[in-house]
């Protein structure tokens, strides 16, 4: 009898301990799980994102709304299934309040439902796959970067306005590659010579470039992020195609690829929502401090991860640290009430940004240094993504 009573008390005490633990932990600190690719060839992108998260925490004094911040980093190894495992561990073992990060659209498609189905907020800081902006939008999924189609839409509009015709378009064969070419075609109404999808992670493009030359297009538009872009640009220049067919791109030339290709990037035209030379106080502070702390130029992957942390901070402050009220948190986030590196922007009903897009050109840098990207003009102001109408969310 006595043994049974002791037993019950012990069980009760343990149960109480477990029930209480998350609650007290939540009130004492803000826990953020940040998932990105930290190993393998694409690890360099993750390094920039992690650096920018750390810089944001430095700027915030390692506190959000008076609560200390703890960021747990996870490596998705460029694989959707690993991304899901990492997210599950963060949610169950570390009891994080927010999950953030994610470079790849296919990883995001797998991770976001894992997070939102547990009632936690997913703050995307790169991938913007179309389903999550449209039919599969979720009130707990918020994206602080862009919807995939938006950037190529800007390039499509620019090339349409320039009266360029007979364009050859190429991208890797995965969700974002398809979104990019779809976005391009939404605003470019001229003739498309051919639409080519290559293998994800491919390093040799010689076979595709031979096909391209035989088709004699007037211009070429591509999307090749990370290492794929480095290979593609090198081989495009080496094959002598740069002087024959002008090359336009999105997410192919950036501050990560320029040091590896240098002059092969000169003259390259891109569209983007942000660039290190964007003139606003928040951006100038971010760029200057990033260069001081890490000794290199920041890249958009990092810039939007920095914004992701400021966005979470704005919500934690607005709700006075009540991290259990996800509804209030997401409503606060939707106000975008923080000094973004891109200047003022708003969120659409689908929790994706409505923002400006600029035309960038790679120009020679200061003597003895790598080329830099410069903003030429705005292509879109307050540009909304094409899928917001399919999203049923109302605020």
């Amino acid at each position: 009898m006595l043994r049974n009573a002791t037993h019950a008390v012990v069980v009760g005490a343990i149960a109480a301990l477990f029930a209480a633990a998350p609650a007290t932990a939540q009130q004492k600190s803000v826990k953020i799980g940040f998932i990105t690719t930290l190993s393998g060839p694409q690890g360099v992108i993750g390094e920039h994102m992690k650096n920018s998260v750390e810089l944001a925490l430095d700027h915030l004094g390692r506190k959000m709304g008076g609560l200390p911040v703890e960021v747990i980093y996870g490596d998705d190894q460029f694989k959707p299934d690993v991304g899901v495992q990492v997210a599950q561990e963060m949610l169950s073992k570390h009891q994080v309040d927010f999950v953030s990060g994610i470079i790849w659209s296919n990883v995001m498609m797998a991770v976001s439902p894992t997070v939102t189905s547990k009632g936690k907020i997913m703050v995307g800081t790169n991938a913007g796959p179309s389903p999550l902006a449209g039919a599969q939008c979720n009130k707990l999924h918020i994206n602080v970067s862009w919807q995939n189609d938006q950037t190529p839409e800007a390039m499509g509009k620019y090339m349409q306005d320039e009266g360029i015709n007979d364009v050859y378009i190429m991208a890797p064969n995965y969700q974002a590659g398809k979104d990019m070419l779809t976005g391009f075609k939404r605003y470019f109404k001229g003739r498309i010579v051919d639409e080519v999808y290559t293998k994800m992670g491919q390093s040799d493009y010689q076979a595709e470039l031979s096909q391209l030359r035989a088709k004699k297009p007037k211009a070429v538009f591509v999307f090749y992020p990370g290492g794929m872009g480095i290979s593609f640009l090198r081989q495009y220049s080496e094959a002598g195609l740069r002087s024959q067919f002008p090359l336009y791109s999105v997410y192919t030339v950036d501050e990560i690829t320029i040091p590896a290709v240098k002059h092969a990037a000169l003259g390259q035209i891109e569209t983007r929502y942000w660039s290190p030379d964007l003139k606003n106080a928040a951006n100038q502070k971010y760029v200057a401090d990033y260069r001081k702390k890490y000794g290199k130029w920041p890249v958009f992957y990092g810039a939007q991860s920095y914004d992701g942390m400021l966005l979470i901070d704005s919500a934690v402050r607005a709700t006075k640290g009540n991290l259990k009220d996800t509804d209030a948190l997401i409503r606060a986030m939707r106000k975008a009430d923080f000094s973004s590196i891109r200047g003022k922007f708003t969120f659409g009903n689908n929790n994706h940004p409505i923002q400006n897009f600029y035309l960038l050109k790679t120009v020679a840098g200061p003597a003895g240094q790598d080329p830099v990207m410069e903003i030429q003009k705005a292509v879109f102001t307050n540009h909304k993504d094409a899928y917001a109408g399919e999203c049923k969310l109302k605020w």
Partner: protein
Amino acid sequence: MILVIEQALNGLQLGVMLFLLAAGLTLVFGIMNLVNLAHGSLYMVGAYLWVAFAQLTGSYVLGVVLALAGALVVGMLVEIIALRTLYERDHLDQVLATFGLILFFNELVAILWGRSALYTSAPSWLSGHVELFGDLRYPAYRLATIAVGLAVAALLWYVVARTRLGMLVRAGASNRTMVAALGVNIRLLYTVVFGFGAALAGLAGLMAGPIYVVEPGMGEQVLIQVFVVIVVGGIGSIRGAFAGALIVGMVDTLGRAFLKPALATIWSPVVADTAGPALASMLIYLLMAIVLALRPEGLFPARA
């Protein structure tokens, strides 16, 4: 027609590149009975050493020579320090241990040179393109890699078929125990073969440097194709590695170039647009499956 010739050249170029990697891998497998997943790391080491030595000496040729020597030394050290104890173990242990080596080399390279891709460029006398005939212009650097690859293949054939060392290598591939029983220092033979395999992988890596990306983990992407090559060609056989590399190089290149237009003539263009790229990236694995079904020993088995 010109386009077909150009694509055949592309296939040949990919093929000789794969051969340089496959030659070392297949010898190590055939003679030492060792599954070496870290072969791609030696490819990466070759590329990084070339970048470092070329920068240090300011000379492309000197960089190549030093990088080759460096890859040879690294290969021999890996064999002596890490792999010797693994010969008697089963293949799963070898896979685990050499997978560990991959992680080790990737991190080592990231610590020494950083995670960002390195800047590389072909030497000025190899950049630009060559007018072959008619309308066909081909990048000079790629022609050079074809020439070097074929020359190495010929040299390797000579060494393996006509020299005493080659005789030992062939004997080792057919019957290791007998070679050891005849008083040959099999340990030394293993170290030498592994070192030369590493140097060949390093050569492939440094030739890939100016056209692909020099970054941590660059070896793993190519390694999968190399395994397909040695399975198709027959494990342990240099001749098989050569044939397999050329077949895989051609099938992959021609598939990427012509499969979609070919499908479009049979089905609607919409179907070809979706099926073409997916099928093209699977083609070499389909080829491997067919070879395994019809000739499980590969096309040119070592122990005929």
